[in-house]
Structure formats: structure tokens, C-alpha cells
């Protein structure tokens, strides 16, 4: 009996001209998702830290929410890697025998450090709330109530001191952790860029600018996602308020005011990082064209012919330029912001796509091309994991997690 053959990549790779026999698009949609998701994590955290560390008061309302949201995104940064590994059960070996000359080996360490920082920061932010809840739920005799109470008791780690001194210590700890967190978040994502930038075999990836470009676009996408989620939640609240009390009610107007205020202020940061990201990418492109190394011929044909629409129309045009203009035109409305944010998120996704898939669009022989066909309808585990539905699973997970975590760590109350 011959075992079933599975040539990884054969299913979705189409070769043209001369490509080495062993070359396939080995890194597919999940590796597009991976830097995209870590980017969202890092971006969300940086946004929350801007308030905690630098005291950007205008971000106060976003801070708690984006902190909790970055916790929800944490496991999702790991998911694409698990989906992508040919031996997913061995993934933990990265923690057991890390080979630190590899950029991926740092993942275990950096990612865990970051996770610890996010979770500790949340613990300090919510400790008071835990302790209060333990007290409040004391009289709740229902099963759900007592389970919830026990969860809070475990989460509180026995630290029930709510004196001014203790709470002040919490605040200080949050500030320190957020301060450490910014460089770690930057590093987490910068090194995702390093994973690509250090592959000398790949002409498109190899660039010292890659980590910086990745950080900038990570912050852009992180801010955009937080803003978008915030808008959706506020709209939902407004909708409920309208249902309950009518359109002209004071609460509705108050909500609208708060929402718009937060948006205009956060959008400013978004634009700043967007400009930085685009400038770096342009610098990279110009440099490659000007120095015209051996690989430039094939890179040029990929960028200006094979992938022109994906790079210049979808990524730079629709994903960067259009939202940039939309956010700059005065008299920002919520609807316009939502469209612009969706485009920004799409643009960053296309950037990841064009780096990961685009980097494999040409053969190492520089004499042929590979075309990627995303598996849509899965017909085995592989085409699910590395197909559209695998990617959608990854994309949906943070929202499902947020729905769950928000029950324990409410981050959307107006009065905090």
C-alpha cells in the first residue's frame, strides 16, 4: 500500500517558465495572516500605551478597550503558525530547544514576554474590579454567580487590598508595564519583519528596512482595527439607546459626541503612522530600482506586470492613498471614517499579501514565476488550514474571544 502523497504547495501553486522543481508557494495565506495578526496585536497595545505612558488624555476612552482587545488578539497571533506548521504538535519545541540563530526561535520568548506583560497590565488595571466583584457576588447564590465569583477569586491572586496606597501602586505598575510593553510590542512585530527581511535567498524580502516597515504598518492596522471596533460598539449602544428612549435623547447625543471626539483624535495618530509606513516602503522601492541589482529585472516584472494591480492599485491606491485623503478632508463623519478604516485594514492586509505571496511569485532561478491560487472550498485538512476558511477562522477568533472575555473584563463602560 502506498501512503497518500502530499506535496505541500502543489495544490495552489501554478508555475510558469522555469521554476526549480522543488519550489512551491510554501508560505501561503496563514503566513499572510501571521504578520497581519501580530501587527494588530502590537498596534492595539501601542494605542493603549499612548494613554498609560504618555498621558494622552484624548485616548483615555480607547485605552482600556484596546488593552483588552490586544489580549484577545494574543492567541490569534499564534494560530496562523499552528495552522501552517506541517507538524503542528511539535510547535512547542520552539520553547524546548530554541535555536537562537533563527529569527523564528525568538518567537517563543518574545511572544511569551509580551503575553505576560499584557496579562499583568490587565491584572493591575482590573484588580480593583476583581475585588469589588468578589464582594458584590457574595450574595449571588446562583450557580453562574458563584462560578463567576470563584473565577474572580482566582484572578485576584489573593491581592484584596483596595487602600489608596495599594491602588496607587497598581496605577504605577500599569504605567511601568505599558512603558516596557511598547518596545516589546515593537520588537514582537519588528522581528516578524526580521523573519522576512533576513532571508537572503529572497530578493524581495531581503531588506534592512523590512522590520521598520512592518512595525509602522502594524501600528496603522492596530489603530484602525481598534477604532473600527470601537465605532461598531458605540453604534450598537446608540442603537439600543435610540430603541429605549427615542432618537433625540440626551444619552444618544452624548454617545455621539464622545464617539466623534475620540475618532477625530485617534485618526490623527493613524495618519501619522500611515505616512511613515508609506514613506519607508517608497524608499525601499526607489532604492531597489536605483541600485538595480541582479534581482531587479525579475522584481520589476513582478511588481509592474504580474502583481501590478495587487501592489499599486489595491495596496497603495485603494488601501493607502484613498483612506489618507478621506481622513484628511475636513468635516469627518462616522460613515466616512468607517469606510476609510476598512480600506486601511484592507491596505495593510494587501501589503502583507504582497510581501509574503509576492516574495514567492518569482522563482529563485529568476527565470520563472509562481502564481498562487487560494483554496476556497476545502476538500481536506490542508486546504482548510491553508485556505480561505482557515484564514477566516483566524480572523474571527479575536472577536469571539472578546465576546467571552468582555463578560469578565468589561472594557466598554462609559464611566470608568
Amino acid at each position, binding site marked *: 500500500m502506498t501512503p497518500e502523497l502530499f506535496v*505541500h504547495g502543489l495544490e495552489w501553486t501554478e508555475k510558469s517558465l522555469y521554476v526549480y522543481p522543488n519550489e512551491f508557494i510554501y508560505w501561503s495565506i496563514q503566513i499572510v495572516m501571521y504578520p497581519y495578526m501580530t501587527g494588530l496585536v502590537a498596534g492595539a497595545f501601542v494605542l493603549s500605551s499612548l494613554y498609560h505612558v504618555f498621558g494622552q488624555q484624548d485616548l483615555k476612552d480607547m485605552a482600556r478597550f484596546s488593552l483588552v482587545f490586544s489580549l484577545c488578539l494574543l492567541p490569534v497571533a499564534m494560530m496562523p503558525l499552528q495552522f501552517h506548521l506541517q507538524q503542528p504538535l511539535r510547535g512547542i519545541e*520552539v520553547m524546548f530547544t530554541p535555536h537562537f540563530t*533563527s529569527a523564528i*526561535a525568538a518567537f517563543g520568548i518574545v511572544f511569551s514576554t509580551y503575553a505576560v506583560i499584557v496579562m499583568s497590565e490587565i491584572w493591575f488595571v482590573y484588580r480593583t474590579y476583581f475585588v469589588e466583584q468578589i464582594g458584590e457576588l457574595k450574595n449571588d447564590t446562583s450557580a453562574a454567580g458563584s462560578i463567576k465569583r470563584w473565577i474572580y477569586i482566582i484572578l485576584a491572586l489573593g491581592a484584596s487590598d483596595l487602600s489608596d496606597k495599594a491602588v496607587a501602586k497598581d496605577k504605577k505598575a500599569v504605567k511601568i508595564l505599558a512603558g516596557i510593553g511598547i518596545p516589546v510590542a515593537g520588537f514582537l512585530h519588528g522581528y516578524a519583519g526580521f523573519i522576512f527581511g533576513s532571508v537572503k*535567498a529572497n530578493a524581495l524580502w531581503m531588506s534592512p528596512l523590512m522590520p521598520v516597515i512592518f512595525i509602522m504598518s502594524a501600528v496603522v492596522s492596530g489603530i484602525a482595527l481598534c477604532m473600527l471596533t470601537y465605532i461598531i460598539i458605540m453604534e450598537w449602544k446608540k442603537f439600543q439607546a435610540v430603541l429605549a428612549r427615542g432618537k433625540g435623547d440626551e444619552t444618544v447625543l452624548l454617545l455621539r459626541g464622545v464617539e466623534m471626539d475620540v475618532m477625530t483624535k485617534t485618526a490623527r495618530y493613524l495618519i501619522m503612522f500611515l505616512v511613515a509606513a508609506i514613506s519607508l516602503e517608497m524608499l525601499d522601492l526607489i532604492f531597489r530600482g536605483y541600485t538595480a541589482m541582479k534581482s531587479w529585472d525579475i522584481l520589476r516584472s513582478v511588481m509592474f506586470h504580474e502583481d501590478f494591480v495587487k501592489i499599486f492599485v489595491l495596496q497603495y491606491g485603494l488601501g493607502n492613498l484613498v483612506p489618507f485623503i478621506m481622513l484628511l478632508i475636513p468635516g469627518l463623519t462616522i460613515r466616512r471614517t468607517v469606510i476609510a478604516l476598512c480600506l486601511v485594514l484592507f491596505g495593510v492586509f494587501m501589503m502583507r499579501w504582497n510581501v509574503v505571496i509576492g516574495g514567492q511569485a518569482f*522563482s529563485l532561478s529568476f527565470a520563472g514565476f509562481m502564481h498562487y491560487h487560494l483554496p476556497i472550498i476545502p476538500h481536506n485538512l490542508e486546504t482548510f488550514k491553508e485556505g480561505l476558511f482557515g484564514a477566516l477562522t483566524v480572523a474571527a477568533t479575536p472577536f469571539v474571544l472578546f465576546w467571552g472575555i468582555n463578560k469578565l473584563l468589561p472594557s466598554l463602560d462609559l464611566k470608568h
Partner: protein
Amino acid sequence: MSCSRRKFLKSTLKGTLAASVPLSAFRFLSPAESRAATESTGTPGTRWGFIVDTNKCVGCGFCVKACKKENEVPYDAPVTRTWVERYVVTRDGKDYIDSPMGGRDGFTDPKIRGEEIPPEEITKAFFVPKLCNQCENPPCVQVCPVGATYQTGDGVVLVDRSWCIGCGYCIMACPYGVRFFHPVYRVAEKCTFCYHRISKGMKTACVDACPFGARQIGNLLDPEDPVAQIVQTQRVAVLKDEYGTKPQVFYIGLDKNVR
């Protein structure tokens, strides 16, 4: 109440910590390991090197066939540890390259990807066998996150099939495209210079299968070895020198069109 719990937690943690610290120290400093660190893993005094004479290759593909059978790489999978490329260069300087099924069945058709090239236009044509270069500075080993691929003391890069996590980073890092996922074991796979043969004094399967002597393997550290002598006395080239990988597969008669 809370105080005693805290005490309990603390002492438990302290105990675990105290237990784990010497434990981890033991892991890094065990005598067996530090002894192993000075041991060389390959045949002492050996550095395996390879010669490919492109002037001699006729494109029969016997090497690819033998390699696949010897090393249990599924015969009909389009991946292979070694392959043969055909280059046809025409009067206008254009080059046509192909390697159908890695050249496993030889080159019997003058057409390249179905395209007929007028014979009178052809100015030169040749075959180039490829295999792992067993680089002195292998990027694939450098990027392995878990230590599943390594270089032996005699210079061969191997993959530990029981430890590879299948991330594909090594495949991406190789500028020569010699690595792939094994269709059955689902881990990174590559040419081993037939390590099981060369460490028994045999030649690799591809060297043995080549009727024309286009492939040779030998010990670069032995001055009497024919391969070492060719590398020392003749003009040989390596593939993609610019990557700084220091390949140990040397080519005679390499053309500028070779990718």
C-alpha cells in the same frame, strides 16, 4: 485566611523554583553534553565535496532516478533531492530552461514546455545537474528554529525527521531551492550526499548511476583524493557565490546562463 493562602502559594512557588533551577542548570551543563561538544560528528579528517562536470552530462536522468529510489523520495512526486536542468541558448541570446519531473526520465523531447526551438537558431545547449551544495555556511541551518537541521563534522547538512516542526523556514532560506517537504514524512527533506553510503566508503547513488562521470564525490581534505585535486588544480565555479554560502559542490564548465 488570605494571609495563609498567600504563604502557601509563596512557599509552593519557592519550592518549585528551587527544584527547577538546578534542574535547568543540569540540562545545560551535564558532563555528557560538554564532552559531546568537543566531539566531531562525522568521519574525522573528512570534508565531503562534490564535482559536477557539465561538459560530460548528456541529460539521461539516471542520477535522478537512482536518487529517488535510493532515498525513498516518492517516485511520482514532482519534488526531488537532485535534478538536471537543460539550457538551450539561441542566436538572439535568449535562454530556454526546463527540467520536467526534475529530469527523472531524461530529456528525449527537443521541445521545451511544448515550444519548438528552430535548431538553426540554437548556438549552445547543455545540461546542468543540481543537488544540495552542502554549504560551509548554510543559511538553512542558521534559520532552523528548533535545531532540527545541522551540519555534521564532515560537512553534510542533515535533517532530523523526528524533530522538524515543518515551518518551512529552511526551504525559504535556501537560495538553491534544494529543500522541500517530504510528501510522506511531512518534514523538510534534502540531499544528504547519501550519508548512509559515503560513511560506508561507497559513492552516492547519483555518482554511481552516472555513466559519463559527470558527478564525483570525494574528501576535500585528502590531497590524494581526485575530487580534492580537481578543485585545487582546475578552474571550478560554484553556484550563486554572491550569497556567501560557500558551496561545496564545484562545477566544471559552468555557463553564465546557469541559474
